[in-house]
C-alpha cells in the first residue's frame, strides 16, 4: 500500500487487530471468536493460560492485545496478566462472569487495562483497540522529542497506518532505534519497510532484566532515566523506548506491590507466587519494577556494587520457605516500625526476588517491602553468624537507623544457623553497623556513606543461567522476626542453588530467633528465596541491587507497601505467602531512608512472623543463580 505502514489490513484501523483470547470455556471461546471476527479483528483462541503464554512467547510480536478470563484451571488469570504485562508488554483485558468490585480491583492492580463482565457485548469488543492505541501513544511519548513528534504525528495522521501492529513505527521513529526483535512482522503483514521500523516488542528476558535492574541501581533510582539506563545496559538492539516503557511498567509493578503490601496487612511479603515456574522473565519484571521503585525512593545512592539483581524467587515452591523468611525480615523491620523503626534508612535491605527457575517471579510480599530504610544491610550469609549473632535480638525490625547494617561479607559457607540468631535482626542494630563491607548503604540520614557491599558483591551475581537475580545481600534485617517456618527447604527453585547458600539459608531459617513471632505469613517459601543467595560475592552485588530494589519499592509508596510489594512480587496479597515467594532484598538504606519510610512501612512486617522469615533470606544476598535449594528451606524452621 501506500505508506510503509500499509499492510493488507491496513485499510482501516483497527481492523486486523491481532487478538489472543484465553478462556477455559469453549462456548465462550467460540462466541468471543465470532464477535471479534465480526469486528474485523484477527483472532487466536486458546483454552489454557499456559498455552497462551507459549503462544505469546513464540510469536513475540504476533499479538496486539490479550483478552483473558479470570478463572482458569491451570493458572490464575491475574498471574497470566502479570506475566504478559511484564514479559510482553501487551495490553490485557480481563473478563469474568463475576463483577465484584474486589475482583475488578484486583484486575486493575495486576495491570489489566480493562475488565469486562460477561456476557460481553459486541460494542464492548469493538472498542478494545483503544488500549492498543493508547499504549502506542505512550510509548511514543517516551521517545525523544523529535521522534515523538513524528510518532505522534504519525499517529494522528493516519491511524490506518497503524494497523500493522499498531505500532507507531515510522521510518523516522525507528530509524534511530535499534530494534531488538527483528521479527516485527505482524502476522501477515508485509511491512517490508515498516518491519524494520517497527518497534519490535522487546522480550525482557531474565538477563536483560537483570541488566536493566543493575543499570537502574547504578544510576540511582532518583536519577534514573531511560536514556541513562540504556547507556549503561549497553545492549545494542535495545531502544530507549523499550527501556522507558519497561521502566514504567516496573515502577507500576513495584507500586502495585507496595499497595498490596499495604492492603495485605499480613506481613506476607513473602508471597509465594504460584506461577508455575513462569519464566524468569516474569519474575524479573517484577523485580525490575521493584527496583525501580526503590530507586525512586532511595536516594539513588545505592551503589550497589553488585548488580542490583533482584533475586526472584521464581519457583513457587522454592519460594515457599525462603521467601517468606526473607521477606519477612525486612518487612518486619521496617515496617512495623518494626518495631524498631528502622527509621532511617539504614536498613539496607536487599530485595531479593528469588527467581528460581523462572517461576514465580512475583515478589512476594513481604520480602521486599520491609527492609525499609535503614540500613538493614544484610550481611551476607557468611556474616550472619558473626554479625548477627548479636542481633539476635530478634529482628524486630527495630533497626534503628543505620545501625543495622550487616556487613555483607558473604561467606558462602554461611552459617546460617547462626542466622537465626542473627535473624534477630533487631539485634543487628548493634552489630551491623559496621560491616558494611559490601555496600555502601546510604543511610537515609546520610549518616553513613553508602555501604558498599564490597565483598564480592561487586560482581554481578547473575551468572547462572537461571539468572535469578541474586538476592542482594541481605541487608541487615534488623527486624526480622524469625519465623520458624520459613524457608524450609521449600525452595524448590532451581536446582542450582549453591549448597553453601542453602546451608546458609537453612541456618537462617532456623535461626530465626524466637523473637520473631512466627508469623504465619512466612511460609516455607521463604526458604527458597534464601537459597538463592549465593553466598558468594554475588551476594554482595546482588544485595546492593536488592537494596535498591527493595528500596525502590518502598520508596515508591509507603515503604510499607513497597516493602510488601517487593517481597511479594506478585500482586497477590502478602498474606498468601504461599505463593511463590519472591524475596526481594532491598538494600534498604538508600531507599528507605529517603522516603522517610524509614520504615518502609511494612506494616505487616512488624509482624514478627515476617521478620523471622526474612532473616534467613536476608542474609544471603540471594543469589538467584542458585536455585533455591530446597535445603535451604529449613532455615527458618
Amino acid at each position, binding site marked *: 500500500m501506500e505508506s510503509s505502514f500499509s499492510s493488507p489490513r491496513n485499510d482501516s484501523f483497527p481492523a486486523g487487530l491481532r487478538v489472543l483470547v484465553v478462556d477455559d*470455556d*469453549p462456548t465462550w471461546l*467460540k462466541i468471543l471468536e465470532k*464477535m471479534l471476527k465480526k469486528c474485523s479483528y484477527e483472532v487466536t483462541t486458546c483454552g489454557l493460560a499456559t498455552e497462551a503464554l507459549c503462544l505469546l512467547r513464540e510469536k513475540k510480536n504476533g499479538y496486539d492485545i490479550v483478552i483473558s478470563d479470570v*478463572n482458569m484451571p491451570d493458572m490464575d488469570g491475574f498471574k497470566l496478566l502479570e506475566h504478559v504485562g511484564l514479559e510482553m508488554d501487551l495490553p490485557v483485558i480481563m473478563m469474568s462472569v*463475576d463483577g465484584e468490585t474486589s475482583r475488578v480491583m484486583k484486575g486493575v492492580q495486576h495491570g489489566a487495562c480493562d475488565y469486562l463482565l460477561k456476557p460481553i*457485548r459486541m460494542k464492548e469488543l469493538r472498542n478494545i483497540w483503544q488500549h492498543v492505541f493508547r499504549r502506542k501513544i505512550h510509548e511514543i511519548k517516551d521517545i525523544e522529542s523529535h521522534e515523538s513528534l513524528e510518532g505522534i504525528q504519525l499517529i494522528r495522521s493516519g491511524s490506518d497506518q497503524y494497523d500493522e501492529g499498531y505500532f507507531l513505527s515510522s521510518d523516522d521513529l525507528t530509524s534511530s532505534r535499534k530494534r531488538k526483535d527483528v521479527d516485527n512482522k505482524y502476522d501477515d503483514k508485509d511491512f517490508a519497510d515498516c518491519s524494520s521500523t517497527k518497534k519490535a516488542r522487546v522480550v525482557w528476558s531474565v538477563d536483560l532484566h537483570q541488566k536493566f535492574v543493575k543499570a537502574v541501581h547504578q544510576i540511582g533510582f532518583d536519577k534514573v532515566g531511560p536514556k541513562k539506563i540504556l547507556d549503561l545496559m549497553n545492549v545494542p538492539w535495545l531502544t530507549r523506548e523499550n527501556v522507558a516503557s519497561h521502566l514504567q511498567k516496573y515502577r507500576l509493578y513495584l507500586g502495585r506491590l507496595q499497595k498490596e503490601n499495604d492492603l495485605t496487612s499480613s506481613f506476607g511479603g513473602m508471597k509465594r507466587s504460584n506461577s508455575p515456574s513462569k519464566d524468569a522473565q516474569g519474575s524479573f519484571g517484577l523485580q525490575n519494577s521493584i527496583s525501580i521503585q526503590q530507586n525512586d525512593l532511595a536516594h539513588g545512592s545505592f551503589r550497589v556494587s553488585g548488580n542490583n539483581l533482584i533475586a526472584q524467587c521464581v519457583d513457587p515452591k522454592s519460594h515457599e520457605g525462603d521467601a517468606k523468611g526473607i521477606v519477612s525480615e525486612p518487612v518486619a523491620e521496617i515496617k512495623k516500625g518494626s518495631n524498631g523503626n528502622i527509621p532511617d534508612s539504614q536498613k539496607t535491605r536487599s530485595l531479593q526476588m528469588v527467581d528460581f527457575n523462572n517461576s514465580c517471579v512475583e515478589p512476594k510480599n513481604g520480602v521486599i517491602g520491609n527492609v525499609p530504610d535503614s540500613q538493614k544491610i544484610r550481611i551476607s550469609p557468611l556474616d550472619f553468624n558473626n554479625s548477627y549473632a548479636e542481633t539476635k535480638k530478634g529482628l524486630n525490625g527495630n533497626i534503628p537507623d543505620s545501625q543495622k547494617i550487616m556487613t555483607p561479607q558473604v561467606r558462602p559457607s554461611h552459617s546460617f544457623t547462626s542466622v537465626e540468631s542473627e535473624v534477630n535482626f533487631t539485634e543487628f542494630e548493634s552489630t551491623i553497623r559496621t560491616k558494611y563491607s559490601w555496600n555502601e548503604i546510604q543511610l537515609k540520614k546520610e549518616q553513613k556513606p553508602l555501604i558498599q557491599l564490597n565483598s564480592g558483591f561487586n560482581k554481578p551475581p547473575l551468572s547462572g543461567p537461571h539468572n535469578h537475580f541474586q538476592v542482594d545481600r541481605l541487608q541487615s534485617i534488623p527486624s526480622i522476626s524469625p519465623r520458624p517456618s520459613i524457608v524450609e527447604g521449600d525452595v524448590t527453585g532451581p536446582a542450582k542453588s549453591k549448597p553453601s547458600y542453602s546451608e546458609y539459608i537453612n541456618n537462617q531459617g532456623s535461626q530465626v530467633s524466637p523473637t520473631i513471632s512466627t508469623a504465619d505469613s512466612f511460609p516455607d517459601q521463604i526458604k527458597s528465596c534464601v537459597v538463592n543467595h549465593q553466598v558468594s560475592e554475588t551476594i554482595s552485588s546482588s544485595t546492593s541491587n536488592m537494596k535498591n530494589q527493595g528500596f525502590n519499592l518502598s520508596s515508591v509508596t509507603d515503604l510499607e507497601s513497597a516493602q510488601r510489594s517487593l517481597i511479594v512480587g506478585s500482586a497477590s496479597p502478602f498474606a498468601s505467602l504461599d505463593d511463590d515467594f519472591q524475596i526481594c532484598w532491598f538494600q534498604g538504606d538508600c531507599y528507605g531512608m529517603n522516603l522517610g519510610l524509614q520504615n518502609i512501612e511494612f506494616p505487616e512486617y512488624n509482624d514478627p512472623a515476617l521478620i523471622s522469615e526474612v532473616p534467613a533470606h536476608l542474609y544471603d544476598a540471594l543469589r538467584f543463580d542458585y536455585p533455591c535449594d530446597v535445603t535451604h528451606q529449613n532455615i527458618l524452621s
Partner: protein
Amino acid sequence: MSAEIKKMEGNSLREQVAAMRQSLFDEEILDKQFVQMEELEDVHNPNFAEELMTLYFRDSSKLLVSVEKALERPPYDANKLDKFLHQLKGSSASVGANKVWIETNKMREALKAEDVERIKNQFQLVKRAHKTLKGKLEPYFHLLRQAGPADAAQPPE
C-alpha cells in the same frame, strides 16, 4: 404455485418458529445474550446460535454429571462443587440460558450457606431448567432449519 406454497409454508413455519422463540423469551428461559448469538450469524456461520447451543449442552451436561457425582455422598467437596457451578454459570451466561443461570446461582448460594438439603433440592431445579431448555430448543432449531432463511425460500419469480 409451488413456489408460493413453499413460501406460504415457509412463512407459516417461520411464524411458528418466531412464536416459539418469543415464548422462550417470555418465559425467561432465554435472555438477550441469545439474541447476541443470533446476531453473530452470518454467511460464514449461518447457524451460529445452534452451534453454540450444541456446544453448550455438551459441556453443561458433563458439568451436571460431575456435580451429581460430587453430591453422591458426603462429605461434599464444596470447593469443587463451587468450581463446577461457577463454570456452569459462566457457560449459561454465554448462551443466554437464563433460567439455568438463575438456578445455578441459587445453588451456589445454598452451597455457601452449607445447607445440604437446599443444595440438593436446588440441584434438582438446575437439572430441570437445563432439561427444559434443551427440550424447547431442540425442536426450535429443527423448525428453524426447516423454515430456512426468510428470503431463501422464495425463488426468483
